[in-house]
């Protein structure tokens, strides 16, 4: 059932994106002021919408739900990780597509105004989040760290949104999500833009779902590898205990494997210590 839904979302995303491109490039008329450059705006705001509000919003929400004790589950941590990775791709595309629009419109590829700078900072912050996830740690410690990092990084999202109101910037003010919620575009342009939002939202849903699956499978493989290596170690330990009970002095291969003390690790190695706890000997399993 899940596969069918995911496939349907994927197909819908492709069809909607193709329709947006067709309408944006060949059907809609050029703008009176911007000419054909307006066609880039059927992509740029939907991409920014996905990056800022959907991807980073979802990651902040999932992180919050992870940190809240009642809803704490690695599901939220994995969802946040999936959402951030997709969001980083969309955030980078926001900067690239904006830059390609800015060069002929403003005369520069880049300028250090509030909207652009805060968006670039957002990218750096969430790339930092992805780097933090790669730091080796116990899954729960990593999840907690990353949840806090995602919430800290998310503080930049409202700054990006309101930057055009708070500071004087080259970037124009909001056209769709403005204060009165009355879009200042109309006709075929508005419908094409709306379709762009729908298309890229579908793309986002598909990507996050697949990326979430990747995260789950990665964790599963990690756990299984750990189980296999522990089973091998236990087997080695029991063989060593039977053959040479007094000859070996290291904690893993000798009788210490069955003692009350954990054989490896310490306070900073919570996973190996917990999983390497002594097993009952004999035929209890």
């Amino acid at each position, binding site marked *: 059932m899940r596969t069918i839904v995911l496939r349907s979302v994927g197909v819908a995303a492709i069809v909607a994106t193709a329709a947006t491109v067709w309408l944006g490039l060949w059907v809609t008329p050029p703008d009176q002021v911007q000419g054909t450059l307006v066609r880039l705006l059927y992509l740029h705001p939907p991409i920014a919408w996905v990056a800022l509000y959907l991807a980073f919003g979802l990651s902040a929400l999932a992180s919050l739900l992870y940190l809240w004790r009642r809803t704490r589950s690695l599901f939220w941590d994995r969802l946040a990780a999936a959402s951030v990775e997709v969001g980083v*791709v969309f955030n980078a595309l926001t900067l690239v597509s904006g830059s390609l629009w800015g060069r002929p419109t403003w005369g520069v590829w880049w300028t250090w105004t509030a909207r652009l700078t805060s968006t670039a900072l957002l990218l750096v912050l969430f790339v930092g989040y992805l780097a933090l996830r790669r730091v080796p740690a116990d899954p729960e410690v990593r999840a907690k760290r990353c949840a806090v990092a995602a919430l800290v990084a998310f503080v930049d999202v409202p700054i990006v949104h309101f930057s055009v109101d708070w500071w004087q910037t080259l970037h124009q003010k909001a056209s769709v999500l403005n204060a009165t919620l009355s879009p200042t575009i109309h006709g075929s342009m508005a419908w094409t833009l709306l379709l762009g939002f729908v298309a890229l939202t579908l793309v986002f849903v598909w990507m996050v779902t697949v990326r979430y699956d990747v995260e789950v499978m990665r964790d599963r493989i990690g756990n299984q590898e750990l189980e296999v290596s522990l089973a091998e170690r236990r087997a080695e330990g029991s063989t060593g205990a039977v053959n040479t009970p007094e000859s070996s002095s290291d904690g893993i291969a000798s009788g210490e494997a069955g003692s009350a003390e954990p054989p490896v690790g310490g306070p900073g190695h919570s996973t190996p210590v917990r999983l390497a706890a002594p097993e009952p000997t004999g035929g209890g399993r």
Partner: protein
Amino acid sequence: MKYVDAGYVICLSVLFVYSVSLWWRRRRLARAVATSDVSSERGRDREREG
């Protein structure tokens, strides 16, 4: 028009390549999980026998 074309080509290409890479990663990991299931099952059998 060249900026518009470049914008569409870059954005759509990046999204396409990233989608394919996600799909590929999931497929590779699904196979690895299947292999790992078999090997961990064997490991457990060996442990029981040992």
